[in-house]
């Protein structure tokens, strides 16, 4: 190891190293979200259809979302705005 290397390795981690580590985490998270399972769109469609068999709701009144909370926990969130009772 040269003298120069010695000084280099003794320095604090560079900001570029920090940037890379942060990005690796962010990007892994982003990819997790968009890599929802293949069956998801179809399942979502069928859930909406089942609801619409029983209550009159427009497609925009039902929201089905998959959220990856951490590595081994995903949450399926279902929101239905029911029509007002007369």
């Amino acid at each position, binding site marked *: 190891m040269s003298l120069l290397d010695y000084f280099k390795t003794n*320095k604090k981690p*560079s900001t*570029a190293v920090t*940037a*890379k580590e942060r*990005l690796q985490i962010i*990007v892994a998270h982003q*990819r997790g979200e*968009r890599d929802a399972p293949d069956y998801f769109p179809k399942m979502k469609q069928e859930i909406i259809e089942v609801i619409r068999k029983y209550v009159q709701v427009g497609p925009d009144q039902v929201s089905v979302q998959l959220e990856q909370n951490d590595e081994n926990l995903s949450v399926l969130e279902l929101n239905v705005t029911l029509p007002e009772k007369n």
Partner: protein
Amino acid sequence: MAQIIVVTSGKGGVGKTTSSAAIATGLAMKGHKTVVIDFDIGLRNLDLIMGCERRVVYDFVNVINEEANLNQALIKDKRTANLFVLPASQTRDKDALTKEGVGKVLDDLAKEFEYIICDSPAGIETGAMMALYFADIAIVTTNPEVSSVRDSDRILGMLQSKSKRAEEGLEPVKEFLLLTRYSPARVTTGEMLSVQDVEEILAIPLIGVIPESQAVLKASNSGVPVIIDQESDAGMAYSDAVERLLGQELPFRFLTEEKKGFLKRIFGS
């Protein structure tokens, strides 16, 4: 078959328009009939970088709305044969772009041109989505900096889910990384992400590395795409990127610090 190439990024100001102008000019210089389209509706820029701002009469939106035909709107480049510019409109709102309208114009252009370069606006709104929707190839323009890399990754997600190729289950859009405004000196001192870092994070093939260069401002000042300046590092780096786009394998240049000569060290560059 015409190839539709989108130059995209998510983040603003990373060098999409500079790159679109350079790559379109480079392809035309290689003898390929090329058109470059400004998708930045309301904020046109490409005409300035191409140096044809005073020749704009009709624009992309006029053609979509059938207020003018393509031949009236296309501007033939004065310097480079085989090269045409389709400018954006300066005033209209972004809703002027519809999938149907854009698709029709691209279909018509595909009959005449080998390469159609789409200069995307920043963001992930309508304009950016329209620019990437029909693409066969995406040049993901990225600066070695956290927000730019994150946005590039988001754009990759869009290409993989929201493009026409994705929607129709065709072969996916070919994605390439174009790293711009690269400063080897700052990479050496640990202040800037390296080419390898960005490649590793985004995990798509590298098509070019364009150094931070004074030649870019000079080129935009005079309305001459920087690739025309073959004395300059940025100009040569864009030429290499064009060659790679055409299938050539070339070593990457300008990745290490330029060794300053004795005089340069004394007098600066």
